[in-house]
């Protein structure tokens, strides 16, 4: 018998497989394809203090082995979210991770405060969305800002927090250490790589926003590398993501040092991808005589 349970900041997940924020809504749409009870956790689409309209369309462009998105964090705001999405998810036997976004620290803090009363398990703080600010440097790219924001959030947060890191940096270990220093309970990585596509026939950008966040199988090698680097740099648990489609992909992240993984873009072309990953990890463990998933975390050094 294999034991796939893992713990993140005291929260026990039945398995290490989560959804990646923004690729799974709040679970409702995919509940037609996936029994949410079988997932380690559902991570919701980023939510802000007030409704955000997001970016103009086209928001989506296909690229080789992946996609670009510039949704621009459209969301209905924390009030609707608490009234509609949390009750929906609470019907299932899975952990709830609420992804939080904002333009400025105050906005994050308002959401975190509002969530204090809610029965959710973890919060994931998205400090890395490259689509919101017109300037290319987001504050998730500055270690000092990250440490400060983390500390501010920790002060008021009732649930453990995961800081979600951007890969668009020279040294991701610096940012991860800053999050740890600020008191983060865990880090998750990677968010999307900033990319661009040009439509040569129309001589325009493929996305109205010019740049977009790249995700999907094409980004996996960068993501695995960063998870490995961060695993050597911090003590807190890591949630790995970026291009996971199969159990083998997920295991790469786990062997590199991730305690849990998120499946994102794969949901769009394999709606049952999350469940396939859950089952595939179990099969791998059985085949290789791995009793507890813990034996695999960071096993390749």
């Amino acid at each position: 018998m294999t034991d796939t349970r893992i713990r993140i900041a005291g929260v026990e997940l039945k398995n290490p497989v989560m959804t990646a924020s923004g690729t799974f809504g709040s679970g409702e749409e995919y509940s037609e394809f996936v029994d949410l009870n079988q997932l380690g956790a559902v991570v919701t689409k980023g939510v802000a203090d007030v409704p955000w309209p997001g970016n103009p369309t086209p928001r989506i462009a296909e690229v080789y082995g992946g996609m670009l998105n510039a949704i621009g964090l459209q969301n209905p705001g924390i009030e609707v979210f608490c009234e509609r999405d949390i009750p929906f998810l609470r019907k299932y036997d899975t952990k709830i991770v609420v992804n939080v976004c904002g333009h400025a620290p105050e906005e994050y803090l308002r959401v975190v405060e509002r969530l204090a009363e809610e029965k959710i398990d973890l919060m994931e703080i998205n400090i890395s969305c490259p689509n919101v600010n017109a300037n290319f440097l987001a504050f998730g790219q500055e270690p000092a800002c990250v440490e400060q924001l983390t500390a501010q959030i920790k002060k008021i947060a009732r649930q453990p927090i995961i800081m979600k890191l951007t890969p668009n940096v020279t040294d991701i270990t610096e940012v991860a250490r800053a999050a740890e220093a600020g008191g983060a309970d865990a880090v998750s990585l990677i968010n999307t790589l900033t990319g661009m596509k040009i439509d040569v026939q129309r001589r325009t950008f493929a996305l109205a926003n010019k740049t977009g966040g790249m995700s999907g199988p094409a980004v996996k090698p960068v993501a695995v590398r960063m998870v490995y680097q961060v695993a050597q740099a911090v003590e807190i648990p890591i949630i790995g993501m970026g291009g996971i489609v199969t159990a083998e992909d997920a295991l790469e992240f786990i062997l590199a040092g991730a305690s849990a993984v998120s499946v994102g873009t794969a949901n769009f072309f394999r709606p049952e991808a999350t469940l396939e990953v859950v089952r595939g990890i179990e099969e791998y463990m059985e085949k290789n005589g791995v009793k507890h998933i813990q034996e695999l975390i960071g096993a390749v050094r």
Partner: protein
Amino acid sequence: MGRCKIAKSRPGEKNMSTKKMETCKIVSQEKIGNGIYSMWLQTEEIAGLASAGQFVSVYSRDGSRLLPRPISICEIDKERGCLRLVYRVAGKGTLEFSRLHAGISLKVMGPLGNGFPLEEARGRRVLLIGGGIGIPPMLETAKQLEAEKILVMGYKDELFLEEDLRGQGKLYVATEDGSAGTRGNVLDAIREHELKAEIIFACGPSPMLKALKEYAAQEKIVCWISMEERMACGIGACLGCVCQSKDIDSHSHVHNKRVCKDGPVFLSTEVEL
């Protein structure tokens, strides 16, 4: 909110568990025009669940292209469980599809979105309007609609599907180059023939939909239009495919509606074009 009720009665929204991901064998593949192909797919359940105006997500067999190609349902053969898709080679994905022959399988998800509200039009005088590659969904819509049907189809030059459409009602054609029917667009044909209706169902390029929206407002008739947008999930989860809505949408709580889930068929008055 009136609209909401109408929407609720539209096909595809009744039951939560209506979308399937299937591997479908190609039954036939035929070139029916310059760069235009007609493909029949054998489905397990999708055809049985599908209704006119809905679409399916077709996935490439090549791992370099991961996103779905949304293609409208052109015909439904419920008995055999088959779907007909008519598509134009627009890029690498549709080029790939066009090269596949009968017997090869494709991953298909569907049926998706809300089709045309046939009940709304039953027994009335309806203008069914298609433009370019927006023509295919009008075929099944025409077939299913029990009403007085006037079909107006706009082409660039070469006609396609006009044989199939002719049997479904009075057919008017417009071509940009004047090679058949009215020279010009569908509105030119409508004006030339002084066509009148109580309700419009339309699918086609944005400029056409925009013109129809204005026309319907002037004529004070109800107009349902089928929209297009780039898609990722096809089921309402990613917020990639939104169009702007006139009012704050009840799901998004902003002025955005998801084409894949809230559409692709919208009332012309509820969206901005």
